[in-house]
């Protein structure tokens, strides 16, 4: 339940090493522009990872989160076509996200189904609905606000030119702090841990486990909606295959961040460090023109090594 443990320290050290290595090997990597721009690549994924971290700590998982994102983006498109203003478009996304998350939540809590199976099903269902609705078209022409939200820097908006931090990244940080405070400092956060660590004992202690599970699924839908608003704004178009496969990226971030897949352990600090680590790592490799697929191979290996290494060291320690 602690936010700052050994694993977080390891991640921070790795982050420093990464910055030094890329800073030396990739000219231009350590420039403010580059670092700021690199955050575009992972801000939305980071937002998904925050919701995923809460769910995994609570012993659940949501594989449909990226499909919900697609559905929310679709809702934005329809709202725009129906003549809604920016607020209406945003509200449509949020509403869709919450409903889609609630469907997951109901299936998991009401029908007592394992969340991995439920969300494999809703993954196909949501993605499929987006396909049905959109077919061979794409929607574009969103109001300027969204493009600003997705592409602009905070400095441009508040009139401080030198402050080149993307709005997306600022939002990610705000959410990270909020989710971190929630999980590590509040009563409800402690209960989330308890449910993940031992759902039966948690219920016996008077914790309404199912209500928390349900709300966390809705929250995942909400975060998917936020990510949808940002992503749709950033790329200015909605297609049914938007954010395809991002659920696995989010899960990878969470696990690398030290959250145990079986629930009850992990921290938001770790998750955010992993988001930064993976984001900057892929960006740096991208600058070296390493192809995406090789990057994901390296990340896959990294994921396994990060799990194996602590155990190997522990074993060594036990022998010594």
């Amino acid at each position, binding site marked *: 339940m602690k936010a700052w443990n050994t694993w977080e320290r390891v991640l921070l050290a790795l982050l420093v090493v990464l910055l030094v290595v890329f800073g030396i090997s990739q000219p231009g990597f350590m420039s403010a522009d580059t670092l700021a721009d690199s955050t575009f690549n992972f801000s939305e994924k980071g937002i998904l990872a925050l919701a995923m971290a809460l769910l995994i700590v609570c012993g659940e998982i949501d594989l449909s989160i990226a499909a919900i994102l697609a559905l929310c983006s679709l809702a934005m498109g329809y709202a725009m076509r129906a003549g809604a203003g920016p607020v209406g478009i945003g509200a449509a996304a949020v509403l869709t996200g919450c409903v889609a998350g609630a469907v997951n939540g109901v299936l998991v809590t009401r029908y007592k189904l394992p969340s991995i199976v439920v969300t494999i099903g809703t993954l*196909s269902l949501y993605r499929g609905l987006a396909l049905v609705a959109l077919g061979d078209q794409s929607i574009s022409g969103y109001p300027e606000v969204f493009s600003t939200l997705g592409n602009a820097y905070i400095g441009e908006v508040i009139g401080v030119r030198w402050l080149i931090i993307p709005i997306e990244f600022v939002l990610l940080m705000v959410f990270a702090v909020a989710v971190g405070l929630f999980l590590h400092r509040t009563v409800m956060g402690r209960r989330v841990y308890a449910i993940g660590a031992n759902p039966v004992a948690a219920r016996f202690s008077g914790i309404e486990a199912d209500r928390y599970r349900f709300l966390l699924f809705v929250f995942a839908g909400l975060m998917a909606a936020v990510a949808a608003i940002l992503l749709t704004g950033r790329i200015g178009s909605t297609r049914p295959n938007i954010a395809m496969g991002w659920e696995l990226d989010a899960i990878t971030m969470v696990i690398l961040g030290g959250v145990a897949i079986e629930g009850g352990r992990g921290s938001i600090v770790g998750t955010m460090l992993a988001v930064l680590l993976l984001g900057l790592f892929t960006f740096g490799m991208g600058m070296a023109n390493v192809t995406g697929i090789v990057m994901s191979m390296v990340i896959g290996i990294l*994921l396994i090594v990060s799990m194996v290494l602590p155990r190997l060291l522990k074993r060594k320690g036990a022998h010594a």
Partner: protein
Amino acid sequence: MNTLKKNARTVRREWLLLLIIVVIALAVGARAPVFLTWRNGLDIANDSAILAILVMGQMLVLLTRGIDLSAASNLALTGMACALVGKAFPGVDIVVLIALALAIGALLGSINGWLITGFNLPPIVVTLGTLSAYRGAIFVASKGAWISDQDIHVAIKGLPREVWLGLPALVWFALVVLALSAVFLNLRCAGREIYALGGNPHAATYVGINVPARLRLVYTLSGALAGLAGLLWVGRYSIAYTELAAGYELTVVAACVIGGVSIGGGVGSVLGAALGVLFIGVVNGALPVIQVSPFWQQAISGAVILISVAVNARSQRRAGRQILERQGAAA
């Protein structure tokens, strides 16, 4: 009589699935008679064959409470390896290629098994990692190039088009794998132990089951079957490339779930899983025939998964232990 009731329950579930499949087939056939032809049946069988092979591997893993998310990546990597070997050595025999596919697949699978048992890691995380790692390895091995029709070894291409005793070779492969799986799970000691350790992993060590060895076996078998499927896939579509069958692992898991294999381990039968495959095959085959927009395919398969797990969960829910004497059940 307790057992009778029990068996009746599970058997009924499988009959129900079969019934649904038949009803769908007839309904589609009523609208498009071509659907009920022998040819179409063979097409569906052909399309389902590779899925069936993968599902048998995945089912073994699910029975032990694991999951093998790397199956599709393994398939693609093995397929690419076979295609490359076939390209480099045009003289190589198909038997050698099959053996090679099984061996490479098994090797990749055993890496999963080794990581899971050797370091006591959760299967979902390990196979999530190898999912990316194997996929990337294809790119590295092929330097990103596609191996297309003209470079695929003739024997690999020819194999899926072979017809033996009136049935396509792919179907034979699937039937043999199904039969071997059924024998393995029902009549071999190791198969029974897989059910046992999936049902209660902790207790398994107490009765002398070598759990790590069994887990390694299961992941290796799953890998070997994925490898075989890779060779067949490359042959059937005459192509090998990095993104081959990407995302197919979820279809495989879905087929298992529809077929009544429990994610929680220890529950599932070869017959059920095979029917799950057939179900997906029939639905996918039916959609284009009744001219449902192809865009509906994915949404429908999602809905089917949800409905079938909900039905499964209801039928498997403990019938409730009865302490009170039932009314009128006086001795």
